[in-house]
């Protein structure tokens, strides 16, 4: 039997998929729905913000970023939970717990670490917290919270230490901001000051677009950018953190299907959080992602999700090291060439031309082994092969 459960920071999740801290973590009811839809854990919208950051824009605060009409990203200018802490403590957390998923409670790091610690203590007293997520990463720089704390290793360390001291028994997972140059430094500071896990990351600070007809921005303030188009950036970040710290990582960023979730795990995330996918397609997408992971594991013969964690890391090298690998060149399967000439169009090295019979012809001497044409070809007629081997075979790979 395929075992989807996974141990994360000492907490056993029934599967590695968590709903992230987002709109659909607004209330206990929303978290309960996510849990009933199958999520292994649920993260609430960050609670306990200082009074002055309590309000968020209500004049349209979410805009999709579309490419050729298809949404590939989204900016939001949403800040923290607008439900006050007392309501979360009195009822919302209780409702959320009815879903029987693991409860990850996201708390706002207040400017004064002692306030954050007080907040954590109060929430912990409900007995409903499995893991704390510490929001030091909201990309809307209001006052001196969010990423204004998260970009400074010293400030983050103070927060982590304060919360750990107040609630030593509850695993603590600070959530990183991607809007700095080296996240690994922050993650290391968290680990060194006692954090039990790292959540990586919050959304990318962005400006989603300009209405060219009016010359006005689609959203007038910088907000957090998320969705499938941020996924490659987040994979890179998770790798950097995984290479730096030993504590487990909860990977976040653009995961909208099972394949992306497994990618996250393979680069070192033990759990995976999904946000925008649920916002766009509803709670049922959680079940679809889990089903996909299960189908994949059966197909590949994986017995347990923990076998997936970090297996891609050992193959990740630097570009300098990559340049030492043997060069490749492109070859053509003439039977598959449909004569569209798109490979000629995208070749920056004049290595491909169209012959008179409408079939591509490759000049191997010019080919620099970039591989772009192979992926642009609509009929998989091009392939990369080892250049040295090809020359050895007299430019005919089939010999």
């Amino acid at each position: 039997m395929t075992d989807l459960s996974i141990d994360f920071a000492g907490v056993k999740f029934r599967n590695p998929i968590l709903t992230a801290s987002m709109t659909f973590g607004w209330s206990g009811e929303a978290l309960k729905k996510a849990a009933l839809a199958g999520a292994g854990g649920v993260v609430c919208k960050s609670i306990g913000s200082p009074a002055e950051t309590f309000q968020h824009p209500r004049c349209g605060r979410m805009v999709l970023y579309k490419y050729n009409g298809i949404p590939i990203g989204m900016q939001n200018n949403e800040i923290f939970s607008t439900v006050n802490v007392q309501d979360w403590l009195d009822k919302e957390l209780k409702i959320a717990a009815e879903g029987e998923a693991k409860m990850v409670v996201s708390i706002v790091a207040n400017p004064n670490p002692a306030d954050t610690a007080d907040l954590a203590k109060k929430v912990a007293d409900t007995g409903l917290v499995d893991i704390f997520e510490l929001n030091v990463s909201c990309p809307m720089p209001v006052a001196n919270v969010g990423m204004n704390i998260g970009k400074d290793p010293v400030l983050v360390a103070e927060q982590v230490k304060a919360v750990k001291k107040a609630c030593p028994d509850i695993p603590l997972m600070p959530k990183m901001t991607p809007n700095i140059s080296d996240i690994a430094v922050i993650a290391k500071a968290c680990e060194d000051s006692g954090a039990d896990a790292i959540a990586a990351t919050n959304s990318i600070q962005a400006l989603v677009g300009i209405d060219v007809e009016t010359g006005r921005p689609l959203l007038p303030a910088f907000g957090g950018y998320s969705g499938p188009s941020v996924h490659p950036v987040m994979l890179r970040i998770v790798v950097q953190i995984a290479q730096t710290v030993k504590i487990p990582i909860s990977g976040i960023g653009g995961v909208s299907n099972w394949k992306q979730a497994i990618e996250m795990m393979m680069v070192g995330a033990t759990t995976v959080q999904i946000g925008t996918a649920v916002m766009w397609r509803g709670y049922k997408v959680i079940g679809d992602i889990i089903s996909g992971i299960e189908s994949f594991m059966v197909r590949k013969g994986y017995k347990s999700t923990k076998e997936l964690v970090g297996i891609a890391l050992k193959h990740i090298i630097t570009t300098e090291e990559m340049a030492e690998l043997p060069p490749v060149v492109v070859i053509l399967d003439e039977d598959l060439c449909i004569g569209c000439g798109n490979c000629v169009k995208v070749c920056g090295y004049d290595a491909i031309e169209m012959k008179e019979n409408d079939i591509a012809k490759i000049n191997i001497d010019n080919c620099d082994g970039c591989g772009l044409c192979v992926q642009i070809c609509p009929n998989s007629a091009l392939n990369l092969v080892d250049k040295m081997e090809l020359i050895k075979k007299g430019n005919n790979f089939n010999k």
Partner: protein
Amino acid sequence: MYLNSEEKTKSFQSPGAIFEALRCIECDSAPCVKACPVGVDIPRFISRIKMEDFIGANRIIKEKCFFSGVCGYICPVEKLCVQNCCVTEPLGPVKINQLQKFVAEYEIEHKDEIEKILPKKMNGKKIGIMGAGPAGLSAAFWLAEKGYQVTVYELKKFPGGMMTYGIPQYRLPRKILLTEINNKVKELGIKIKTNTPIGIIELLQKAYNAILISTGTWSQVSLKLPGINLTGVFQGLDFLRLVNDISNKKSGTNPVAEKKVAIIGGGDVAMDAAISAVNFGAKRTFLIYRRSFEEMPAIPSEIKMAKEKGVMFWVRAIPKKIIGDNNGNVKKIECIETKLGKPDKTGRKKPIPVPETEFQLDVDIVIEAIGQKVENEFIKNKDLKVNPNGTIKTNKNRETSIPGIFAAGDVISGGSTVVQAIAEGVEAAISIDKYLKTNIAKNLKSEIQGGQK
């Protein structure tokens, strides 16, 4: 919508399937699901196709419908899910059935990717089912999954009922059908006894805790025209069974090759017979129907296909007699034209013959396909209440007048679609499960005997 059933059953490859799936907007109201008799969660399975989780997609379908591939092929979707699809312009509704067919066939080809289901613990209760058609098998599968020990009795040589004997292979490849049946039977350890005629009394003698009757409608309605006994007159289902046997290269000689054929009727069986006649080399094929195209009950894509195949439609005509030659073979069929009057009991306009409009068609073969009815000696029992048309009376739980005996499928509906039979089979199974959980476990034999005391 669909041009004809050939287009409807075209196969997708995975890139095409994903492309088609992406057209589904996964609307929350999901009118397609509401239109599906078994309630397959259509947006869900399509969502999984988008994610390339084809096994997971079929898992969603099979939660509600054990015959995922069969329904993908033959469901009258242009009257159900596809007709109700939210997506319209510019490419028309999402081709839901083709997507379903794709995932079902994918699963058959990638058996090793399915997680082995551990055998359920048997609960010790036994169920006997009469008739291995879509209703009986669906109930059998559902109950076996819950741990019941199920035995299905089938009169014919193969299981599948109308799916096997009443639907031509150009609409439903035999391989899909038998694979879906056999995989499930093997997985669940169900006993299917084919070639086994059995009556209610006999079944009651055996120690079953509940019985399901799903024997279908195999007796054919006839106009009893003069000349009905001439050589060359067939009943629709017999003809379809004959051509199915020929397709399987089992036996039989082709009766329609190079012949002029007339089909009487306007339903699915009539359309299947007409198209089969063309496929089997009939020189000329007429279809005679007493009302107009508008009232014709067959699936529109099948009517369209019959037209494209060259079937000549004589609508608004009623056959009066079949005329034979000296050797007792069919020679001509005489019909009379009709006009349509006010709606009759069935809600359709009543065809009224127009005097002095008789005409004759030169034909060699007449295939009568005007409907089926229950009439079945195996289910005759004084305690089993039936409706005037012969269908078995059941309450809303599909329970008959005899406690512990349930019924589902065409034998209660009088003749409907495969998907409707599947829905009823599952409903009956759920009721049987409930019945056996609320009634103290005792087998029917003792219960009936107790009643006789």
